[in-house]
């Protein structure tokens, strides 16, 4: 039986791990490789690096962190943030990433997703969608770390990205991110039910019950969290055991 995935996410800036609340107020807290090693040993199902300063800055620190991680961790690694062209993807894959997550560039140039999927295969193209609720039952796609509205409906956008060849959707509720109040379940369920490709729920995890909700009620097949693991509030093994107890298939 296919197991539901628990994915710890490390926010990386200048090659160092940080984690913010609502994407501001960042706290420096460590080396990505040592963090990755711990998650690998604890049985995380995948690992995600989000490069949050990715703008125009020198990305060599990121490639170096990916390279050092891939040398030690034999688990799937997704890297996102600041990917603008197929050359950025190629460099990350060569450094040792297995998947790349595309957000802003997908919005500014949707054909890029098709081009990337055709060139590298859908399995390594994750489209990240940052969504905010704008009305009851309506969510809008935002970019630039939640600062810029796009006018795109999140559910329609997810469908379009799936058609373009995305292998997976990483769905983050900007309303919940950093709040520890749980995933936006209504959003997650609407997106997951609308598309055939897997959805990773993200944004708002504060307790292990939230992980259960994301899969059982949100219909996600993977859950992503940063703070609860990073600051040691819960271990990966606690999360897995809790999901198993709730009857959700996980790899123990």
């Amino acid at each position, binding site marked *: 039986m296919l197991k539901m995935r628990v994915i710890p996410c490390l926010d990386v800036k200048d090659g160092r791990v940080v984690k913010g609340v609502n994407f501001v107020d960042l706290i420096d807290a460590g080396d990505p490789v040592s963090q990755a090693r711990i998650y*690998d040993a604890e049985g995380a*199902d995948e690992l995600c690096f989000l490069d949050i300063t990715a703008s125009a800055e020198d990305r060599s620190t990121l490639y170096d962190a990916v390279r050092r991680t891939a040398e030690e961790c034999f688990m799937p690694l997704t890297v996102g943030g600041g990917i603008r062209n197929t050359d950025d993807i190629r460099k990350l894959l060569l450094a040792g990433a297995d998947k790349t997550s595309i957000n802003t560039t997908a919005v500014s140039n949707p054909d890029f997703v098709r081009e990337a999927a055709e060139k590298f295969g859908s399995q390594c193209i994750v489209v990240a969608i940052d969504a905010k609720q704008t009305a009851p039952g309506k969510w809008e796609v935002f970019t630039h770390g939640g600062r810029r509205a796009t006018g795109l409906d999140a559910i329609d956008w997810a469908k379009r990205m799936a058609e373009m060849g995305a292998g997976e959707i990483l769905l983050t509720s900007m309303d919940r991110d950093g709040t520890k109040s749980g995933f936006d379940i209504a959003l997650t369920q609407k997106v997951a039910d609308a598309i055939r490709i897997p959805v990773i729920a993200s944004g708002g995890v504060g307790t292990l019950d939230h992980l259960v909700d994301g899969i059982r009620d949100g219909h996600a097949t993977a859950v992503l969290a940063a703070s609860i693991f990073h600051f040691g509030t819960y271990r990966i093994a606690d999360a897995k055991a809790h999901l198993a107890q709730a009857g959700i298939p996980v790899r123990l």
Partner: protein
Amino acid sequence: MTTVVIDYGSGNLRSAAKALERAARESGADGRVLVTNHADSLRGATRVVLPGVGAFADCRRGLAKVPGMEEALKQVVLKEGRPFLGICVGMQLLADRGREFETVDGLGWIKGEVAPLVPSDPKLKIPHMGWNQLQMHRKHPVLDGIENDAHAYFVHSYALTAADPKDLIATVDYGGAVTAVVGRDNIIGVQFHPEKSQATGLKLIANFLRWKP
């Protein structure tokens, strides 16, 4: 003693090569790993690994484009019988043909076809992505020490169906039985990614490095 990983422009060869090096180091098996797109380098190989991600037809064309590679593969694998491991699309390419977007001939080393996954439960997501449990159909030296129900990391939307049940070594359940491992003689192919399957994957790779078919 050189394990050659064939580079034909498909996917993440670094992780496959790193996993081979790590498994070799930990198990004391054959050490050297060479990633190459030169057919000549293949002739000196003790073992051959064909990775592959993406679409069947793209991979098939990518492989055909490397000058002399197919002839060299036939020589070292089919004629000289050196151990061969195909991973993901590198395993699917063993089939007679693939039906992904278009119908394209494979290497034809394992009788069978590659076709879209059609899980019995329409709610199951495509691609089949994540950790799933191996169901062993028979023993194989490359799976030695890997328990029935061991987890491996899969990501694929198409699967190989072997024409000869003798070639089927393990399956995985995803709305029905899906081929996970095929093989005959000195050839083995795995649908999952051993280089991403943590301890189980490293075990499989170490077994492959010691395998004397």
